[in-house]
């Protein structure tokens, strides 16, 4: 187990000039020993690159990787003692389930009786005990992926276990089970786990700390709550949440907000310099107000969807689209009507150049 420090950048091409030449832009990150982390972002954002840099399958084109303060930038995955689970199950076809699980231990010359005990424990944990003597090649995909997970978890002394979208090939209901299993294993084994995914639910339920990435850049590291309440970057606001944050242009003038032709008071405790900003409001924090309420804005209802747990209202405010999540019992206005929406509140975020300012 180890604390992992990254201070690096990576480009696959030899002479990166622009930001877009980098798979991973310069970043610093510390993964604490025993923590559960998730790297979250859309495809191609650099999360797998980052994982391969940590595991040592890839050497960074600049910067360093440190395990417990020790520079391992040029060390192989074996020297780093890293375990990694890949998106598609990798199993050794000719071996039994037990041999598959024992393989990493045998390669490290662990005594046979210890191997047997360890394989037994891991199989127990992953509910593979009944299949230990079966050939791995004949099992269904989810069992194969469990074997891959098991091979990642079987070494008791690993620095960290890295998961590269390990549940992509798994059926939804098993996905849920396996995710719980992983969480439980993290609890029992106290391993450092780093989990790559593009699924926000997966990331937010699995990890204590989530790193949100886009285009080779880490835009925010934080807990699920922080990512939801105070997105540091408009991308985080847009990417986290379903639907994502609403963004509207506002003008700040002497402590008053100009929004869609109306003047609104600044939320309590916020200080904004004069100038143009982007107002970010979560659909959860858009409230339906009574006609003419102070602070409320008139909006034209464009669409109303009943999603079971809530009503999703889409409305036009001065040419901008705003989405609101409303309680299902709300007496919602009909499509085409004018609804008054309360947008600014203590939950509002203000952005300039895509970065959070207040």
């Amino acid at each position, binding site marked *: 187990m180890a604390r992992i420090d990254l201070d690096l950048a990576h480009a696959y091409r030899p002479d990166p000039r622009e930001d877009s030449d980098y798979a991973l832009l310069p970043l610093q990150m510390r993964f604490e020993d025993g923590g559960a982390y998730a790297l979250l972002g859309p495809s191609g954002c650099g999360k797998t690159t980052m994982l391969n840099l940590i595991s040592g399958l890839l050497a960074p084109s600049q910067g360093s990787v440190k395990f417990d303060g020790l520079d391992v930038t040029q060390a192989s995955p*074996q020297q780093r003692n890293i375990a990694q689970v890949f998106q598609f199950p990798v199993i050794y076809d000719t071996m039994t389930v*037990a041999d598959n699980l024992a393989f990493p231990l045998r*390669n490290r010359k662990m005594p046979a009786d210890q191997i047997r005990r360890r394989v037994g424990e891991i199989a127990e944990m992953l509910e593979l005990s009944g299949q*230990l003597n079966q*050939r791995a090649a004949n099992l269904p995909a989810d069992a194969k992926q469990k074997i891959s997970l098991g091979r990642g978890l079987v070494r008791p002394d690993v620095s960290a276990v890295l998961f590269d979208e390990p549940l992509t090939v798994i059926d939804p209901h098993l996905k849920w089970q396996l995710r719980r299993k992983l969480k439980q294993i993290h609890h029992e084994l106290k391993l450092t786990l780093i989990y790559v995914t593009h699924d926000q639910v997966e990331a937010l339920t699995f990890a204590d700390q989530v790193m949100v990435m886009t285009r080779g850049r880490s835009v925010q590291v934080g807990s699920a709550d922080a990512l939801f309440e105070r997105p540091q970057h408009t991308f985080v606001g847009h990417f986290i949440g379903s639907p994502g944050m609403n963004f509207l242009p506002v003008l700040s003038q002497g402590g008053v907000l100009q929004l869609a032709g109306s003047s609104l008071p600044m939320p309590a405790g916020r200080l904004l310099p004069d100038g143009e900003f982007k107002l970010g409001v979560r659909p959860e924090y858009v409230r339906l107000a009574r006609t003419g309420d102070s602070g409320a804005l008139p909006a034209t209802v464009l669409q109303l969807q009943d999603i079971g747990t809530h009503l999703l209202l889409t409305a036009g405010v001065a040419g901008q689209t705003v989405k609101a999540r409303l309680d299902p019992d709300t007496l919602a206005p009909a499509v085409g009507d004018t609804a008054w929406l309360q947008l600014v509140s203590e939950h509002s975020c203000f952005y300039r150049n895509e970065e959070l300012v207040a």
Partner: protein
Amino acid sequence: MKPVNQKAWLLILPVLVCVAFSAILPLMTVVNYSVQDIISPERRVFVGTEWFASVMRDEELHSALVRQLGFSLAVLAVEIPLGIALALSMPAEGWKSSAVLVIVALSLLIPWNVVGTIWQIYGRADIGLLGAALQRLGIDYSYTGNARDAWLTVLAMDVWHWTPLVALLCFAGLRSIPDAYYQAARIDGASRLAVFRYIQLPKMRGVLMIAVLLRFMDSFMIYTEPFVLTGGGPGNATTFLSQYLTQKAVGQFDLGPAAAFSLIYFLIILLLCFVLYNWMQRVGTQDKETGHA
């Protein structure tokens, strides 16, 4: 009961007709010959299984069969490992890979009899690169005079001609292994040997099976190259089954025994391929019955 519709048989009728004319009818002609003594086109005598019995007792045929088996086994023993080694050492991508592929495949493009001629000249003690070089080294090499030399030359020629096929098949098999397997092996701390044993070899089993069967059948039926190179000699050191058969059928015009032998020859190949195929299907795919870890 469900109504049974037999019309689907009509769909395979064209194939049946084609196969009948291309395979079944010629085969039946051979069967026809094998049970008759054809003295002249007008005079034929039915002899039952007599030809089969005499062919089975033929000493010359026995030694040809032993030679043939030895040759085919030697071909497999050399070409399969060599082909795998070649495939493993070929560059995986880029222009080098394309260039190597073309070079490796060159020998496959040469007609059989030309291969024989090439080696005939190559091995000549006076002007051939191989023969003359060996003579200079003080080795008394002669594929026309020495049975062992002739045998080795035929084997070397077949290895030269056909190992590339095995290599190309294995190369294709290797290329189909996803990168994740190699990455997982690095993570698991597998040695180079373990990667070969547990990833590359199992993933190549399909193509290897094809390679083994193709090389076995082809080498078992080898005719043109040794015919051009040694003509079956010296003595009959390199007279393999098909050459023996040709001598009988075309040389001596013993159609009956030749037909009987053809059928036996055919059955031997069929049987050996069946055994090989089943053995290779089973090896490494069964559940282990006992013990783990």
